[in-house]
């Protein structure tokens, strides 16, 4: 007899038993339901978080970015504070000469949170002094028709030019005014707007649109801020030559460690051994996140694994109880010609049916869990992490439950198959 021909009545039988014992079946399925739900929800949410974080890191300049920040001297060097010159444009030249792994160096001089004014309209935002290298390091650009960015010449000539973040524009200019070429005032100085930076929106639904107003746009800060030549910022606002930091972009992410080491050595040597700077990379952030991800997966996977295990035990338990109740039925089936293998298949199919139905209910529950998690995550994370259920994960969850059901069904099914028909028929 063909296997499929035997399977069909077995499955029909399984469904019939399921219908006949709804409550019991539901209880026996609860473990599988929870297991599948937590498994699918866990994988989905973690994947969503990973995806979001990748994007986040990318928006932060990616893995090829090294950030050098000024920092106070450590305790043991505090008495040498007078020797510290901080990070300066001289460091930029040194690094250019001695660290070939670094492709771009973007010096940054924060001016502060300043008021911008245009024709009676005002807005406040961060003003930063940068060079042309800011664009490749920050992975930003100026869209065609939106003017240009700060050039080397602007830096050389200490020009009073300004590039605006896209979020600043609607606050400062009426819709019918082209900002490029207009003059805005910062601390009383007149700056000519030469360009507008590209708008960061994040891709697809993963990161909410930065242009969304009010409390919503978590990426708004990336689009606010304005930029002036670093030389202008240092001489006309800050009054010293100290930079707030450097952004470095390396050519090859695989050489990140070497680049960091070379940068550190060069700076230490130039700073006479004073640790008045810190070096961070997104790799560390990424690494931290990977650890969190693993921890998440392990703990949630453990929960899912345990509930699936318990689910398996639940199914086995109910199958054994069901077989005990149906010993006579087994006897009758054998008396009319069923082989051991027929009954094995019948009860295994019953277990499989229970686990498949349980698995489907679990998937249903998981969509609910993912919805709730999404709600919580969008409230909690700056990136507004959104996880989407995908078919591959759901199929895996379902396959998992079927495997559990089959494993759990083997022993009860074997018991049914091995029952002696005479004993079974005598059973009261």
């Amino acid at each position, binding site marked *: *007899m063909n296997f499929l*021909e035997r399977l069909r009545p077995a499955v029909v039988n399984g469904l019939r038993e399921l219908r006949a014992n709804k409550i019991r079946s539901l209880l026996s399925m609860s473990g599988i339901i929870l297991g599948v739900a937590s498994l699918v929800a866990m994988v989905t949410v973690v994947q969503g978080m990973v995806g979001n974080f990748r994007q986040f890191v990318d928006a932060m300049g990616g893995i090829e970015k090294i950030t050098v920040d000024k920092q106070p001297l450590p305790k043991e060097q505090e008495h040498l504070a007078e020797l510290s010159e901080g990070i300066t444009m001289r460091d930029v030249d040194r690094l250019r000469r001695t660290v070939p792994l670094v492709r771009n160096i973007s010096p940054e001089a924060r001016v502060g949170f300043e008021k911008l004014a245009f024709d009676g309209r005002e807005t406040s935002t961060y003003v930063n002094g940068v060079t042309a290298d800011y664009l490749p390091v920050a992975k930003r650009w100026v869209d065609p028709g939106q003017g240009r960015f700060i050039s080397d010449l602007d830096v050389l000539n200490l020009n009073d030019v300004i590039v605006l973040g896209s979020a600043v524009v609607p606050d400062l200019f009426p819709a019918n005014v082209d900002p490029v070429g207009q003059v805005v005032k910062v601390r009383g100085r007149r700056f000519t707007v030469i360009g507008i930076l590209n708008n960061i929106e994040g891709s697809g639904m993963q990161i909410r649109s930065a242009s969304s107003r009010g409390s919503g746009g978590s990426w708004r800060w990336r689009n606010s801020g304005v930029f002036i030549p670093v030389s202008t910022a240092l001489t006309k606002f800050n009054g010293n030559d100290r930079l707030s930091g450097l952004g470095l972009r390396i050519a090859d992410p695989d050489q990140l460690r070497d680049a960091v080491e070379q940068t550190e050595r060069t700076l230490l040597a130039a700073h006479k051994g004073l640790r008045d700077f810190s070096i961070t990379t997104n790799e560390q952030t990424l690494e931290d996140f990977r650890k969190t991800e693993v921890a998440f997966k392990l703990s949630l996977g453990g929960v899912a694994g345990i509930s699936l295990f318990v689910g398996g035990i639940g199914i086995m338990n109910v199958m054994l109880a069901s077989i005990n109740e149906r010993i006579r039925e087994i006897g009758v089936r*054998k*008396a009319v010609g069923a082989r051991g*293998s027929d009954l094995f298949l019948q009860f295994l199919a019953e277990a499989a049916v229970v686990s498949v139905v349980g698995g489907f209910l679990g998937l249903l529950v998981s969509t609910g869990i993912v919805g709730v998690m999404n709600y919580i995550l969008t409230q909690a994370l700056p990136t507004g992490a959104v996880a989407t259920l995908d078919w591959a994960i759901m199929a895996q969850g379902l396959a998992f439950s079927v495997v559990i059901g089959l494993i759990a069904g083997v022993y009860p099914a074997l018991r049914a198959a091995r029952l002696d028909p005479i004993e079974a028929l005598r059973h009261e």
Partner: protein
Amino acid sequence: MTSLISIRGLRKTYRMGDENVHALAGVDLDFAAGEFVAILGPSGSGKSTLMHILGFMDTPSEGSIVFEGEEVARLGADRRAWYRSNRVGFVFQSFNLLPRLTVLENVALPLLYRERPEAEAAAAAARVALERVGMSHRLDHRPGQLSGGERQRVAIARAIVGSPAIIFADEPTGNLDVRNVDLVLDLLGSLIQEGITVVLVTHDLSVAERARRVITMRAGLVQEDRQR
């Protein structure tokens, strides 16, 4: 009449603790096709053991059984299952219908365990069998909705659906009222006209008297074998 079953020196020994119990202690019998036989005896006489062995539910410890010309005493479980679904029918005292299945499904059940089960052919055969026992009007009922006599008629339909050579009826009237006893016994008796051998297993003499041949068993042996 040709011999359907021929048994020689049949023994069945059980181990009960330290003792050997001889349920069958050397039985020689022949059954012809289309015979109506009663096996009579008190409990423990070995009549049930004999029925189980002849019905391919059990195997003898010793002896030979020739069924339709083939030696079948030492068959494996799957082969015995084949005989149960193809050559043998059972009718039990407590009907043993499956409560969740309809009358039609219950009767079709033996056919579904055959080599090439075909649901529609099985249902058609089940309808014919139910017609034969006068239960065509209850196809979609569950056993629980039927009276005892009706249930036993359905059970008989299930026994004959696969065109068996022999039917074993184990105290088939034990749970029935007087009116239904006659009905069921008449029905069983009428099956011999179709060439089916009917074996009534009972401890009730009045039931056994309905058969043409009465085999009396005692302590694992045939005590008497008389034709009427």
